[in-house]
């Protein structure tokens, strides 16, 4: 009995944890101070909308129940009230002011690229990314992995569920150090792309002939996955982004090995 029970429990547990992701309904909290700020603001506004919805939908539902002709309701004849118009104009204005203050503050923080410790140049290509560690002479392309690429071919008959991190895995991930304010410059080689990392709450368009700028600082080690977020042609859905966040020491060692690789 026990011989069967353990594997079954193990399997059920695997389904539990595997499926938790499959029913995700919300933004990730993420691993940067900005992503947490954005998540909190998102939830704040969400609950305000729920509150307004409850009030407004509540009034509609009560009206539909109480004032039915089949219940003998006699219609009133009033049809305007300047006071009502003022009240339901002013209250929404107040709500908007309340929302706009934290939003404006967040925006100012996001646009503040001062005090960055390193710069990475990101270039979008049809259909892959190129990463360039500015000043370090390290640069490489980052493309969808072979296994994903085979499975995604039309009528490949390969079940995507058998491919690990299907469509979200690359051959050469971007490697960065934790707890470091990193500036990114982003451009494109051909058409407009967009670099989106949900866990960092970073999304910026890559525009050919122009350079955009932003920053992120990741608080936690780990591997994070994102995708191109601007239609860029047939393989727009097949040029993912993977970032591996290492400790500062591990990052320094990796950077050295890349440079040694270059010079040999």
């Amino acid at each position: 009995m026990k011989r069967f029970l353990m594997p079954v429990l193990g399997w059920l547990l695997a389904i539990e944890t595997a499926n938790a992701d499959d029913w995700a309904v919300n933004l990730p909290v993420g691993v940067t101070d900005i992503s947490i700020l954005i998540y909190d603001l998102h939830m704040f506004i969400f609950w305000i909308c729920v509150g307004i919805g409850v009030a407004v939908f509540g009034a509609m539902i009560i009206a539909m129940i109480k004032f039915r002709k089949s219940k003998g309701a006699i219609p009133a004849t009033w049809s305007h009230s300047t006071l009502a118009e003022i009240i339901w104009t002013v209250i929404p204005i107040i709500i908007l002011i309340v929302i706009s203050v934290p939003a404006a503050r967040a925006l100012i923080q996001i646009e503040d690229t001062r005090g960055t410790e390193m710069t990475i140049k990101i270039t979008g290509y049809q259909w892959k990314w190129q990463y360039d560690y500015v000043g370090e002479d390290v640069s490489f392309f980052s493309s969808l992995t072979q296994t994903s690429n085979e499975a995604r071919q039309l009528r490949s008959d390969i079940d995507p569920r058998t491919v690990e991190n299907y469509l979200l895995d690359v051959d050469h991930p971007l490697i960065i150090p934790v707890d470091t304010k990193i500036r990114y410059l982003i451009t494109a080689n051909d058409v407009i792309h967009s670099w989106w990392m949900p866990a960092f709450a970073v999304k910026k368009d890559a525009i050919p002939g122009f350079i955009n700028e932003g920053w992120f600082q990741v608080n936690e080690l780990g591997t994070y996955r994102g995708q191109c977020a601007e239609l860029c042609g047939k393989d727009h859905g097949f040029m993912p982004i993977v970032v591996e966040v290492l400790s500062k020491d591990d990052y320094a060692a990796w950077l050295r090995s890349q440079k040694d690789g270059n010079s040999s």
Partner: protein
Amino acid sequence: MSATAADIQDSHDHHHGPAHTGIKRWLFTTNHKDIGTLYLVFSLLMLFVGGAMALVIRAELFQPGLQFVNPDFFNQMTTLHALIMVFGMIMPAFAGFANWMVPLMIGAPDMALPRLNNWSFWLLPCAVILLASTLFMPGGAPASGWTLYPPLVLQTGNAFPFAIFAVHLLGISSIMAAINIIVTILNMRTPSMSLLQMPLFVWSWLITAYLLIAVMPVLAGGVTMLLMDQFFGTSFFSAAGGGDPVLFQHIFWFFGHPEVYIIILPAFGIISQIIPTFSRKPLFGHSAMIYATASIAFLSFIVWAHHMFTVGMPLAGQMFFMLSTMLIAIPTGVKIFNWTATMWEGSLTFETPMLFAIAFLFLFTIGGFSGLMMAMAPLDFQYHDTYFIVAHFHYVLVPGGLFAAIGGCYYWLPKWTGHMYNETLGKIHFWLTAIFVNLTFFPQHFVGLAGMPRRIPDYAVQFANFNAMSSIGAFGFGFSQLLLVYIIYKCVKGGDKATAEVWDNPEGLEWTVPSPAPYHTFDEAPVYKPRFEDTH
């Protein structure tokens, strides 16, 4: 036949029918009722053409992996689905309502420019056939999304100039129709109806017509600049030549944002006609509703870059567009509150038009909430170009715009045909549609927030469950609309005879003419008396 001076001099018992019969009648008609019918039938057909493309999209997205189409064709479907639904379905639908109902509502014998009216319509099938034909050209149809961003759109094959020309034709059709509507409303209204006394549907079309004239030429300019860059060596949108791809986005969205209000304002107008009738109570805040509509139209000009928060806009720009976009929530909210107040202490019945109008109130409001969230620029960095956006605009366009059009259809079908439609079938159609539309689009909020970008033919495995739901919903929604076609067909053919009033004491000049409305109405200007002193 257009209403000539001689006709108006005739005694109003002398009714002329159509000048031709058969195909010629429909090709050469200048009668606003015939042209309204042409627009509406065309739009219903386009619902299924654009809908079929949506089903190709949803079939591919039913499961992870690519089963049916290659990615480039998928993008062609995405692009044409939107262009056909926006320019071939929803805009012509509301133009059809304008043609049928505006002259009736203001006591005019026809539109001011009846021959222009005919042209405005017949441009549409030509434009749509041209656009659809690009599917069969080398390189296929445009696959850049309906937003046509360069440089990507310049990678379109032979189809490119034909697609641009089709967009021009669609724009010209709208501009001519808009001119016609403004001239009709301002000049041919019965003298006893002041501007502020006009029904909300007429007001909403008056304002929409000004929006159309203001922004369709801007789209025309933008796509012509694309044509120039492609064929005549200019570099408006190419950095190498000193231009900027983002310039196109500014031009496109300066058109594009007012465009979405062009789509929704007539829908608002229809809702403002339906709810008072089935509440047996006048529209609450008639004047406030007019001012709110005008405010929305004005504000729609100064929010366009909220579609562009991720292009690398300076902080001041992001701040301005965030705040101006939030402002639009105010007059929109005012309208929702006024509709609710119309129902409050009314005497409600729930015939099919009212069901669609109430569903509009609930579901458009949900679309409005996601819109408010997207207005917050820092949040939009996470939402932009994801399925959260797709969910938002489908909620405002489908249970928003389309439900208003379908509701208006049920509401005025008896006036147009002289028969009541089958109420039981109408209710079945409503519930099937309402349930499936939510099954289709609500889960898209979830996958968008969870990380799924838009305009992709295949996705990571964690998005599979909600995508499967959405695809099932889409097929259910699509096939349920066949019931609408059947209901309309049966109603045209026969049914319980409709009275002039059709409903329970509705307000409006259209209910003072017989059902079906005679080919020529109001050859003499009627006397309009507002029903309540209250409604000024």
